[in-house]
């Protein structure tokens, strides 16, 4: 009993102790991977992200300076309350040092706040909202893979330039959808387009027909899908069923992952324009990572979220090894000092607001005839340089940014 009492006190005053000492607390580095493992975002992150973290840990030998690395994982079921209570328990009871992935912007914002208060690092790959690096930024949070600004600049701009001037949005009604709709509307308007209307649907809907009907009734040239995962694939399938594309309107899948394209099939998905932070078949290095990943995941190729989790994890562990301290802010500060050069990013930099800046890619889904088989889905149209892809630091609303 005595022991657990001490442990509890240690947990209660964890903030003070971990902050004061430059060492690895309880001589273990605990990594908590939290994401959707049963719902609509399972395929794009889920068990794949856990496996990506394990790969990164195994490659550096499972320990740093004698401290063992442990990996935990949990399913937040896309509910912010479940996510934050898991995070709280991890921090208070397990002594977790870094929380990784966390798709679903609503959950990510809750976790970011908690990790910030408790000096635990937060390495986000799965979530999209730009709030993570703006009004809700934290010195312990790194937003690694992509965000809604980059998606809007990529897909949104490309479609307006191709003549899609009037837009109607079908938006997932939570932090992510709002953020993506907002950022894309801005891009559309800046480039001379207009937004005719918007309709919001609950997360994880099954029937999109009435929303599609509203979109059709608006007469907009482009229907922007400000949703993700299963919601996006369902919207696209039903748009197909109701003959939306055949009658002349274009779909803008603002956020679509490799696994979504796989579940849609190329017949339905062909021709969609999309923005991605990673494509497995882009160069030698990306193919090499993808091969190792696929071997462990029954042949599934990595999405940009998986690649971001792996690359971010390697970077975190390298920074931790450099300073020998597992305090959240200390490691993240170190991560910000070191450039990232790997299969995922060339000269990637983590800015003071926590945004990892790297090149993004504008891609188009291949027609069935042009694809050589399963997972050969994208044709990369062009590279969007990092300094254009992400929100300039001068526009940041993050209090950490000194202006």
């Amino acid at each position, binding site marked *: 009993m005595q022991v657990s009492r001490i442990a509890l006190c240690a947990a209660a005053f964890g903030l003070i102790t971990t902050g004061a000492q430059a060492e690895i607390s309880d001589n273990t580095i605990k990594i908590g991977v939290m994401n959707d493992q049963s719902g609509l975002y399972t395929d794009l992150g889920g068990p794949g992200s856990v496996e990506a973290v394990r790969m990164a840990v195994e490659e550096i030998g499972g320990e740093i300076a004698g401290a063992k690395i442990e990996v935990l994982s949990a399913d937040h079921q896309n509910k912010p*309350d479940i996510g934050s209570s898991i995070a*709280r328990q991890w921090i*208070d009871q397990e002594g977790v040092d870094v929380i990784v992935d966390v798709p679903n912007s609503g959950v990510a*914002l809750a976790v970011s706040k908690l990790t910030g208060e408790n000096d635990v690092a937060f390495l986000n790959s799965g979530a999209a909202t730009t709030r993570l690096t703006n009004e809700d930024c934290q010195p312990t949070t790194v937003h690694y893979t992509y965000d809604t600004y980059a998606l809007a600049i990529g897909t949104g701009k490309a479609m307006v330039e191709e003549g899609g001037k009037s837009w109607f949005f079908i938006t997932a*009604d*939570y932090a992510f959808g709002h953020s993506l709709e907002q950022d894309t509307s801005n891009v559309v308007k800046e480039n001379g387009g207009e937004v005719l209307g918007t309709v919001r649907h609950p997360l994880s809907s099954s029937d999109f027909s009435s929303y599609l009907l509203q979109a059709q009734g608006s007469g907009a040239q482009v229907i922007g899908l400000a949703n993700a995962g299963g919601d996006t694939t369902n919207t696209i399938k039903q748009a197909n069923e109701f003959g939306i594309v055949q009658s002349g309107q274009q779909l803008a899948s603002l956020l679509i992952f490799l696994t979504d394209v796989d579940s849609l099939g190329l017949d339905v998905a062909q021709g969609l324009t999309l923005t991605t932070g990673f494509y497995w078949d882009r160069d030698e290095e990306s193919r090499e990572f993808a091969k190792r990943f696929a071997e462990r995941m029954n042949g599934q190729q990595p999405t940009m979220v998986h690649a971001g989790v792996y690359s971010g994890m390697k970077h975190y562990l390298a920074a931790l090894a450099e300073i020998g301290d597992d305090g959240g802010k200390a490691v993240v500060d170190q991560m910000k000092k070191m450039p990232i050069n790997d299969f995922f990013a060339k000269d990637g930099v983590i800015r003071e607001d926590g945004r990892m800046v790297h090149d993004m890619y504008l891609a188009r889904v291949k027609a069935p005839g042009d694809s050589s088989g399963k997972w050969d889905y994208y044709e990369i149209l062009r590279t969007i340089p990092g300094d254009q892809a992400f929100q300039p630091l001068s526009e940041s609303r993050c209090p950490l940014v000194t202006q």
Partner: protein
Amino acid sequence: MRRLSTNLGFGVLFLAFMLAGPYLGLYPVFLMKLLCFALFACAFNLMIGFVGLLSFGHAAFFGMAAYVTGHAMLVWALPPLLSILLGVLVGAALGLGFGLLAIRRQGIYFAMITLALAQMVYFFALQAPFTYGEDGIQGIPRGTLFGLLDLNETMNLYYLVLAIFAVGFLVIYRIVHSPFGEVLKAIRENEQRVISLGYDVNLFKLAAFTLSAGLTGLAGATKAIVFQAATLTDVHWQMSGEVILMTLLGGMGTIWGPVVGSAVIVTLQNYLAGFGSWVTVVTGAIFVVCVLTFRRGMVGELVHLLRPRPRVEPEPKPAERAGEAD
């Protein structure tokens, strides 16, 4: 007299355990969650156990109180006790509203009307701007008690929550054992007779429902401060189902039943959290077993075993048959 001393004994034991809990290595956040749900179940029990009306809409009071308290703390920066009081008032006001619409109906009709009304509240919570829809209100500050005690200190908060529970529980105990409570129990047993005695039965029911809703609000408001979040989970109808289960499992119409029931369920949820949806399956199975084999609940069966009475105990009777009303 004997009943009083037994209850007092239990009370002291429970309080002692709760005071010591954190020092026995129990996770304080877990204990606080348990206390919130125990209070919720006790408040719910006031209706089902002592008036005999099954409400399937208590999540509305629980959740809306959580939202209002969260909003008061986060946006209006009110002190914690005042914010909780606001939550209680909102719970009670909603309860009054529900009650005015539903209280004349009985049995299944009452259950279904409260369910439908709660569903309206759910959709309101989904749409209203101050609840932030699917994201919920997050990062609710815990504040400082009387400007002195920092509630971010887990143990300070813990003792506050324990005190709130104790107050809520005592209020319920007083209600049940007051003349007012005796009338409620009489209504449960034989409504016609109470009417014939000249009581305005509906007024009594409405008062009980409002009190139950207000106390539920107290539980929801406290939960919002403990978890620093108020989300759609709190207003969803499954929350109403959960509280029914806690009360049913512990024993409807007993003072300690809901506390025991919620302790069992919250502990179970905690241990099964890592096993995906098995939590749902186990919860459902407990429901089925309860209904089929021990409808008196854990505490109810125990009381029944310990005090066999000469006359035949009727089956516990949560409500009159539907359709006999009006």
